[in-house]
């Protein structure tokens, strides 16, 4: 049964990568990153259940805290970029290209 959970985790992680590299909407890219974090969380919890130790639960809580911090910062940056360019296209944000 553990294999099914890990396969599901792999599927969700790959869908997250596909979302990041194929979409150009800032919000969709951001939520795909969250999807990858969630897939990692699922693997943590599944391994934690297999070994019957709760370290994976603590690590999943840390990942959630990192995701919350990332959400706060990334949304602040998105608001700033939208104020500056009024677009949501990742190709428009090329300030560092020179």
């Amino acid at each position: 049964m553990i294999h099914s959970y890990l396969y599901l985790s792999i599927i969700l992680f790959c869908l997250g990568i596909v979302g990041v590299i194929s979409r150009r909407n800032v919000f969709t890219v951001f939520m795909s990153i969250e999807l990858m974090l969630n897939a990692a969380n699922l693997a943590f919890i599944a391994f934690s259940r297999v070994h019957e130790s709760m370290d994976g639960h603590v690590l999943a809580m840390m990942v959630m805290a990192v995701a919350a911090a990332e959400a706060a910062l990334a949304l602040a940056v998105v608001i700033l970029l939208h104020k500056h360019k009024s677009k949501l296209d990742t190709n428009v944000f090329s300030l560092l290209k020179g």
Partner: protein
Amino acid sequence: MFADGLFIGFAILSVLGAVGLVLFRHPMNGAMSFVVTLISLAGLYALLSAKLIFALQLIVYAGAIMSLIVFIIMFLNIQPSDLPKEETKLFYILGGGIVVLPIGLFLAKIVKSMPERSTEIIGNNFGGVKEVGLLLFRDWLVPFEIVSILLLVSLVGAVILAGKRGTIK
């Protein structure tokens, strides 16, 4: 068995939500289908007898983080004309799938080489608040404090970035 049926239902729902997130054009539709993924992942955590993480997933992820994202999407008042034109989206998704497929197959091969174990729901307070809390404050105290510093730094950074007066140059 009942738990197997629940697992299949939650797994199908979570994959469908993730596919919807990748395919929907408007970010609001994507956010709504991502909420479905998060809630079904909470159900999977409950099946893995992680009681505290089940509650935290519903409260922190599906509650706080997603409502923040939905709030920002509504706050920016996105019209369909503001969205980037993605005529070649399906080609990119196909190409991305071809690029990602070897990675996924490699990971699947690793999983296949591991011994199969049962994941029946166990009692004995596994994953309860008290047990995870004891572990968190005994063995993981230093990482916990570092996470608190990380949250403080991101709080200050978000206030400075979003509360900036005038335009950036």
